[in-house]
């Protein structure tokens, strides 16, 4: 047994209202630069739907994740050698159009157009070519089942279960079901992106399991983009380097939740530690039957309260406060103790570490619409398996098609609902309800506190990183400390290509980008690549509103060490 720690996340899908706050705040923090306009480390997709990038779950097409070859794990895209022979042009790399072509609008024409008969319009212009374009897809084109009957049936999961459930997958208005699926990098225990990287630039951090790209070692081979079955590694087309969700490591290191979690209005995300047995990861990922992968993955997670595990963890260099955090970990409780949180697509064999509590609402809604008491335990239990479409759909997402774990999780959630209704209506609560799902009344109540009350300190149990090892910074401190600091950022392209030279820390780049926007005199032409800004940053204006000179002076004088203009 070799114990390692992993920062994991759980998302409670029942609470997701699809507001995209997590996506937007993540984008502002990490990908609001030219070259990654199309990149969403965090995206929220409507299911059923094609997802982002389109149909990424269709692994026959995109070749992500692992497969078993004669009992041994191999990347689906091929052996090491065969993939190296394809290094000159990756045959299964998604094209920009599979994500979407980012754009902005010609705002300038709105005010500079000569007086005429017609109102001027701001036409869309591509942020890639600078040419006028027709917008035909975006990261969220099929949000809320938009384009429903036409687009949703192309959902790879719908295609897959269509054979089993036939035409009971309803896409018509009033008969459809839908829910939201927020996705980030899974920070897998057996990351196929890392395994795909020919340069060895991608790595899993041994302290906390966060999967990162070493930007200095990446050579732009693009194999990781193919390797990740969730398509959560992106290629920055300006710098020629891979980028991915960082689990907001600078925040995690100081004990703060990630940006996407912190800003989630539904408060549905949980962050904590898993302790796992690193020696058995490969073996577990090579479980022959896909449907056993969920159990195999659970099996890797070690009980942090087991004295033997604690001793082994100490031996393997895990600090006492980390073990203590693991013992209080909300994600361990939800995934392993209550078994309500399930991994996304365990059949990809990457052992993903972002877990999902499946949504009960499509089922409750369906019941309520048919005039049933949707909170009555018996009705709900009965409905769970008779409403087979959502369950089968969920099973394909979270358990390689096996309905049992999904039903188990939904039953616990349904029981909690009925039990708490009993208690809230003044009774003691019917103890037989928790028993029916194998919990005591106290455990059920604790689950309710964790899921429904969801206090900040219960949702996030993040131990701080230990600093005794060193002094230097990974992401250089503040704008002023950085060589070529404030004011010297005007040169967008180094001597050897678009982004050569020392990498600019994201924080510094953002600082300059925002400052440039706020202090520029006029509108920026979308065709001007040196001034390209992301849509989110883009308000169509370069200048601070007229008549407010004070603000500009304030901006110009703002102390960059204070985090720059806000």
């Amino acid at each position, binding site marked *: 047994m070799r114990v390692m720690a992993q920062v994991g996340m759980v998302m409670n899908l029942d609470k997701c209202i699809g507001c995209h706050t997590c996506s937007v705040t993540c984008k502002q923090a990490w990908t609001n630069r030219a070259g990654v306009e199309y990149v969403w480390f965090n995206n929220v997709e409507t299911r059923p739907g094609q997802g982002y990038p389109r149909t990424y779950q269709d692994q026959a097409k995109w070749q992500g994740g692992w497969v078993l070859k004669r009992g041994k794990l191999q990347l689906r895209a091929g052996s090491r050698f065969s993939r190296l022979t394809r290094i000159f042009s990756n045959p299964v790399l998604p094209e920009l159009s599979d994500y979407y072509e980012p754009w902005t609008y010609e705002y300038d024409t709105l005010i500079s157009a000569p007086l005429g008969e017609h109102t001027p319009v701001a036409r869309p212009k591509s942020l890639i070519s600078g040419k006028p374009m027709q917008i035909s897809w975006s990261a969220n084109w099929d949000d809320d089942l938009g384009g429903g009957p036409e687009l949703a049936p192309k959902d790879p999961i719908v295609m897959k279960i269509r054979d089993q459930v036939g035409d009971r997958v309803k896409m018509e208005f009033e008969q459809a079901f839908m829910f939201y699926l927020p996705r980030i990098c899974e920070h897998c225990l057996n990351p196929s992106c890392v395994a795909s990287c020919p340069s060895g630039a991608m790595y899993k951090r041994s302290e906390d399991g966060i999967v990162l790209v070493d930007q200095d070692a990446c050579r732009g081979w693009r194999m990781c983009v193919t390797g990740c079955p969730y398509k959560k590694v992106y290629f920055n087309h300006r710098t020629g380097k891979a980028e991915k969700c960082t689990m907001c490591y600078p925040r995690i290191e100081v004990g703060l939740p990630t940006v996407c979690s912190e800003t989630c209005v539904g408060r549905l995300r949980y962050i904590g530690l898993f302790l796992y047995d690193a020696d058995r990861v490969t073996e577990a990922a090579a479980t022959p039957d896909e449907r056993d992968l969920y159990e195999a993955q659970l099996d890797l997670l070690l009980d942090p309260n087991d004295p033997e595990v604690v001793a082994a963890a100490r031996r393997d260099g895990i600090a006492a406060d980390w073990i203590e955090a693991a013992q209080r970990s909300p994600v361990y409780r939800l995934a392993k103790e209550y078994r309500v949180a399930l991994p996304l697509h365990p059949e990809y064999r990457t052992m993903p570490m972002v877990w999902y509590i499946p949504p009960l609402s499509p089922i409750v809604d369906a019941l309520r619409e048919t005039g049933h008491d949707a909170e009555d335990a018996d009705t709900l239990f009965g409905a769970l398996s008779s409403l087979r479409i959502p369950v089968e759909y969920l099973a394909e997402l979270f358990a390689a098609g096996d309905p049992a774990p999904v039903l188990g999780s939904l039953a616990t959630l349904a029981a909690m609902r009925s039990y708490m209704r009993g208690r809230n209506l003044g009774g003691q609560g019917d103890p037989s309800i928790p028993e029916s799902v194998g919990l005591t009344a106290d455990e059920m109540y604790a689950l309710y506190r964790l899921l429904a009350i969801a206090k900040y300190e219960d949702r996030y149990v993040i131990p701080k990183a230990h600093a005794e090892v*060193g002094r230097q910074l990974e992401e250089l401190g503040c704008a002023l400390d950085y060589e070529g600091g404030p004011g010297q950022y005007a040169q967008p392209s180094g001597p050897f290509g678009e982004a050569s030279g020392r990498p600019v820390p994201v*924080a510094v780049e953002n600082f300059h980008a925002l400052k440039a926007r706020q202090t520029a005199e006029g509108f920026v032409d979308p065709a001007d690549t040196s001034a390209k800004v992301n849509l989110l940053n883009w308000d169509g204006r370069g200048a601070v509103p007229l008549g407010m000179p004070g603000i500009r002076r304030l901006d110009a004088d703002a102390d960059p060490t204070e985090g720059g203009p806000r």
Partner: protein
Amino acid sequence: MSTADILLWVALPYATIATFVVGTIWRYRYDKFGWTTRSSQLYERRLIRIASPLFHIGILAVLVGHVVGLVIPESWTEALGVSESLYHAMAVALGLFAGAATLVGIVLLIYRRRTVGPVFAATTRNDKTMYVFLGAAIALGLLTTLVGAGVLGEGHNYREDVSVWFRSILLFQPQPELMAEAPLSFRVHAVAGMLVFVIWPFTRLVHAFSAPLGYLFRPYVVYRDRGPHDPGSRAARPGWERIGQ
């Protein structure tokens, strides 16, 4: 032998080697972040699927051809029983094949760069310069193969002069007189080739040094320590340093 010959066949080669070696080391130390293929496949996938492998495999074959032709003395291959005419026939056949693949590849790649909007928008001045030098060297190389084979002109056994000169440079006993008498096309191609190596460290060509052969031998999953740095993204303010741990 004129001064120009000394400059071209003694000074230039050594200057090339020096720039190539020092430049590469310097670039690697200064600019690891800019060291990348900067692939444009994301913008366009159809043309690059054909053009890029064609060009790269072609140029690798060309490289092997050059190494064999320039480094291995004629006497060695003859000792192996490969006659001059047999060697020549083989070299010309393979050389033409590889050269043609490379040329078609680079022409397609340049065509794609020029005509596909996003790819052209992502092309820097540095890239354009590089294409000029590389394209010229390749085209001249193919021409030289034709000349050497006797398809154009009367044929020439470069292993008796150009190759000997090449080795003389590596052995630090330069024999510029050999090059001075070589046919014009050989001389022009040699200069073009040297210029490619001069600009090499300062262009995207450096990605060739990153051929990831180590990948075949390393374990799949790479683990790394967090490394020596303080947690978080900024240094602690004076007076707010962390205590303990």
